[in-house]
């Protein structure tokens, strides 16, 4: 029914297909979203009393966050591998790598859950301090992005992916490429969150 051009093939004069351009613009707007929050962090850090952010920052669990960082980086690698396998028409390998990506994402959420609950257990809430407020807001929003990404990944890992692959392997590869770009972005946000919240 639809006759929309350049869904998969690249438009000659722009060198892009629709979804690739779309996801980059989406990421640009996401950068502005997190950029707004990061600048709020900087603003609040300057406005806070001396040592306030350091004191509350020291209450965070650095080893757990380091583990989570490694987990997300691994998931980005497996994400690439799954896309590459798909490009090489190796569907089983694609499914394995995508599964690993999903596992890493879920593992990240589990660790985050443990971190959050232990904070609540110690009576630390977003209202405890400005630092904790921005910590919970930033990581919470990031967790929502991970959740969203996982939903999409699970969707493509499910039989829907197989059906799409049988219909047109390039279509699935295109979807996985675009999802991967988003996944790398979410990973990158964490790479920024980790130092400013846990290490600074």
């Amino acid at each position, binding site marked *: 029914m639809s006759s*929309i051009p350049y869904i998969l093939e690249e438009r000659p004069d722009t060198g892009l297909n*629709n979804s690739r351009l*779309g996801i980059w613009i989406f990421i640009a707007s*996401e950068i502005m979203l997190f950029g*707004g929050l990061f600048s709020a962090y900087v603003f609040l850090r300057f406005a806070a009393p001396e040592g306030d952010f350091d004191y509350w920052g020291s209450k965070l669990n650095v080893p757990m966050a380091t583990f989570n960082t490694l987990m997300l980086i691994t998931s980005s690698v497996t994400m690439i591998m799954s896309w590459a396998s798909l490009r090489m028409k190796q569907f089983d390998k694609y499914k394995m790598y995508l599964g690993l990506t999903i596992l890493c994402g879920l593992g990240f959420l589990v660790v985050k859950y443990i971190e959050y609950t232990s904070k609540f257990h110690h009576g630390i809430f977003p209202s*405890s301090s*400005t630092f904790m407020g921005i910590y919970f807001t930033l990581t919470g929003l990031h967790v929502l992005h991970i959740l969203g990404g996982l939903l999409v990944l699970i969707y493509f890992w499910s039989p829907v992916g197989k059906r799409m692959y049988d219909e047109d392997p390039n279509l699935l590869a295109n979807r996985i490429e675009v999802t991967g770009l988003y996944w790398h972005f979410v990973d990158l946000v964490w790479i920024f969150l980790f130092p400013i919240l846990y290490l600074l």
Partner: protein
Amino acid sequence: MMVMRYQLAYPETPIPIVGWFFAESGGIMLPENYNTLGAMHGTIMIFLGVVPLAVGAFGNYLVPLQIGAPDMAFPKLNASSYWSYFIGGVIMLASFFTPEGAARSGWTSYPPLSIFESGQTMWLCGMIFLITSSLLGSMNIIVTIVQLRAPGLTWFKLPFFIWTQLITSFLLVLAFPPLEAASILQLMDRVAGTSFFLPSGLVYAGNAVEAYGSGSPLLWQHLFWFLAHPEVYVLILPAIGIVGEIIANNTRKPLWGYKSMIYAISFLGFMSFIVWAHHMFLTGMGQTMSAFFQLTTMIISIPSVVVLTAFFLSLWGGSIRFNTPMLFALSFLPMFGIGGLTGLPLGVAASDIFLHDTYYVIGHFHYVVAPGTLFALFAGIYYWFPKVTGKKLHEGLGKLHFWPSLLFMNGVFMPMFIQGLAGLSRRMYDGGTQYAHASDILQWNEFMTISAFCLGAAQIPFILNIFMTLASKATGERNPWDSTTIEWSSPSPPLPHVNFDEEVHVYHGPYEYSVPGKDKDFCPQTVK
């Protein structure tokens, strides 16, 4: 809006007809009711009115048609943008009927007050949906323009309207997320008890506020105006695009300085990101900051003047057809001119100290968006109605709509400059009766209120016109205005999901009117 005007003219008196809404006070509007109406008027007009109309409706409908595309690039994204807007709109409107009532902290929602005042949580939730809707919609518009242009339609053959939509969409994509971030922070302040926008030692309604403190109300203002200044251009750019199309068509001439206008609006789009703090001269952010933002504000007025000058020069030597769309488009020029030029004293920090938060500001931005953007949208409706429905709106009723609208529009907003220059503050529920300096200019309120009601009555011919035309028989004429741009080569109304009934190839620039040596005075883009 009418209720607000009635209140300003006749404060402390029961309001007829809608008085039951304020039953507890015997039909008299209380200050908090006035604040609610003020806040929701701004919110509804901007986020539920002009943006969805100018970008959502006109953009979404005309962009694929004007670039010869079968549809938008992402139809599902388009639908989700609409439904997200729908949910946001329902939340906003439903907030009137909750026990807390709708938001009453102004459309700007300045903290710390907005953290404590009731109704704000619904407002923030609604905003998050509306912002998401705009983001999805504008991404779609950008991809559509970049990717789906018909063969032969190069960048400088695009109609000016498409260029304005492209810049607008970039503004939305890049400026809206910081407001989303700010809304999330404010929501946290209200729901999770954080204190991002609450300074230490705050006292509210006589009680010390129990919060951690060390936050900053200024942070909200920075994040808010980082969106809200580009937002002004989001409101005006599509209007400029519509006016450009109609002026070229009805002067039967190419737009004068087409390329300079494109460069001007691109520059304007870029500059609009670095002028936001001219809304904050009175916050004590310091002279260096004020000087910087004053300078950028003066610079950003240049591209607007370039565009307006080009429009005026386009009229020169044209054989102008004074039909209804053209009348609205023509009146846009002086009205937007007044709106724009009265903005300059506000952009200069020294004069802004006096004018800030007076009715002068209200007059200024209403001239930009009411007789400016709104007239352009009217012009657009009259101009493209035959394309959407295959039926042309009645010219006589159109003129009956236009002339009183123009007259009463000025009747409403012109006295605001007088009141503002006399120092009358905005956002006062009784219009400022307790102030001595206001006593000389308060009599204007009655005049403005009567004008506002007449302005409302002037819309009756418009509504009648639409319904009567819809009831009439379609002619299906493809190109009733003898226009050159691509949308007029499609059937009226365009075919669903494909728009065009034959392949579109583009051979000409957008405004090849009165080309010497041709037998007709227009040369459509799609005809060799």
